């Protein structure tokens, strides 16, 4: 196909370059092209349309607010309501919402037509010693109120016996939302955390690692591979994610992860102090305030002396972040079924960690971005386009726990 632009190409890679494993749903030519279209649509909305909102804000929206109220907007909610009165913000929002809905339809179309085959492959591949399901566990209310990011049926719905459709849909179409910035196996978050930890603690040799809200295990696999002597436990409430995750791990040759169905807010099945590293990556924002407090308390209870706790999320809305950026980052909270997102990014996680028993002087704060594996996949560090709240450039909030009996000065 002929193109007229002579600019360097900086768009998403072709969908067909995503990393293959035995569970990844097959795509026809047109299904792959639907993903390509949507990845380009998301990129276009971020790169070409979104900047116009900042212009409108400076030139019309903010001045108009001042004229009406005799002052500048006081917080991100006032900015958001002012934005909602502007046609350009509204059409961008309409298109962004629609792109997510199209992505879900595309993914489910791919998956449901081959679901029985996927279930058979999953059942055949998963090492049953590495999969511990709890059929008595009901999905917590923080997940059931709305379907997160407009994903029909959320993570936990079982459309068929031994279902894996939620995970297959998530895995198949994740490429669309980040345009490949998570890498060929969408594991850039886990790779970023490994790089962070190797730098922080070059000699760290954890025996037991706990990943909270693991989903289908994208991010825990590079961590498990980087610490092959560790026993890794990955917990999630959703059986379809865990079944798929265990089979996917087996397919990719990672055999030191056990996928366990449990709510991160209640991990009473595990003994105190039994993990050397407890972490979560882009999980906390899909919980609730009460669950978050319990997760912090469980993290503290489960961490071994000398261990490390890390939670990865998008940056906090602190005073240094302009209100317009805060309002744009908040879009998913109100328009993409991420109901706890707005509060999670406002909360002082440091304070919650201290209340859960961590030592304030031992808290960790660090930026981390996805490291994208695979030719043609670009790291978030080199991505100039800001798709607020979705670019995989995150913030670690964590804590180190003193070794037992002796806390080095």
């Amino acid at each position: 196909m002929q193109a007229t632009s002579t600019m360097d190409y900086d768009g998403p890679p072709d969908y067909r370059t995503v990393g293959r494993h035995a569970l990844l749903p097959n795509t026809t030519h047109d299904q792959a092209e639907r993903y390509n279209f949507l990845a380009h649509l998301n990129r276009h909305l971020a790169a070409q349309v979104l900047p116009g909102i900042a212009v409108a804000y400076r030139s019309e929206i903010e001045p108009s607010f001042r004229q009406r109220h005799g002052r500048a907007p006081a917080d991100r909610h006032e900015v958001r309501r002012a934005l909602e009165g502007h046609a350009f913000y509204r059409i961008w929002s309409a298109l962004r919402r629609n792109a997510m809905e199209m992505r879900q339809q595309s993914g489910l179309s791919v998956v449901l037509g081959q679901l029985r085959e996927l279930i058979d492959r999953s059942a055949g591949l998963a090492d049953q010693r590495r999969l511990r399901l709890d059929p008595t566990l009901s999905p917590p209310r923080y997940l059931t109120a709305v379907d997160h990011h407009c994903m029909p049926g959320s993570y936990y719905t079982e459309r068929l016996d031994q279902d894996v459709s939620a995970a297959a849909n998530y895995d198949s179409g994740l490429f669309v939302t980040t345009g490949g910035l998570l890498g060929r196996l969408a594991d850039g978050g886990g790779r970023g955390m490994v790089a962070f930890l190797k730098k922080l603690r070059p000699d760290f040799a954890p025996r037991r690692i706990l990943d909270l809200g693991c989903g289908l295990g994208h991010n825990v696999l590079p961590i498990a591979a980087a610490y092959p002597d560790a026993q890794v436990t990955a917990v999630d409430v959703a059986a379809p994610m865990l079944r798929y995750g265990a089979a996917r791990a087996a397919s990719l040759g990672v055999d030191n992860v056990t996928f366990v169905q449990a709510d991160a807010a209640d991990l009473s099945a595990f003994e105190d102090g039994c993990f050397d590293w407890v972490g979560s990556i882009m999980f906390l924002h899909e919980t609730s305030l009460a669950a978050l407090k319990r997760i912090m308390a469980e993290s503290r209870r489960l961490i071994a002396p000398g261990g490390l706790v890390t939670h990865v999320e998008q940056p906090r809305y602190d005073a240094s972040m302009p209100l317009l950026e805060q309002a744009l980052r908040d879009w998913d909270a109100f328009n993409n079924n991420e109901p706890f997102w707005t509060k999670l990014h406002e909360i002082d996680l440091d304070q919650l960690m201290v209340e859960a028993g961590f030592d304030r002087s031992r808290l960790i704060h660090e930026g981390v971005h996805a490291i994208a594996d695979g030719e043609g996949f670009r790291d978030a560090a080199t991505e100039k386009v800001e798709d607020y709240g979705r670019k995989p450039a995150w913030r670690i909030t964590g804590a180190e726990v003193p070794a037992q009996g002796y806390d080095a000065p």
Partner: protein
Amino acid sequence: MSEDDKQAPLDVVRLAGAKARGKRPYFLEDPDVERVLSIAMAIAGELAVLRQRLDTIEELLETRGALTREEIETFVPSPAHAEARGRWHQEYLARILRILQQQAEAQERNDEPTSSEAGAWMLRE
């Protein structure tokens, strides 16, 4: 979902276009217009897919062999093929008109919270 339902064939087209739980926000002043926008974007997507497919055919023809115009003009699909093409059309329209399906589903499920309402509820949990 009952156990019986889990054995029945999946209505893939309907399920793929299903609405996510949570009242849908509309952004444009007239929601009717937004639904038309949604349909237009779906058509845009399908046109992109078609254009890519055409490019695929061009590439294959150029690299692997020939295909006459007459063969295209006089092509008659077999009954099974004709049925498959009909099914393609049905699914095509389901994709394009997904928003109407979801609007209909929403009318039956108007007790769902908005994300914002759910967020407020989560602070009280």
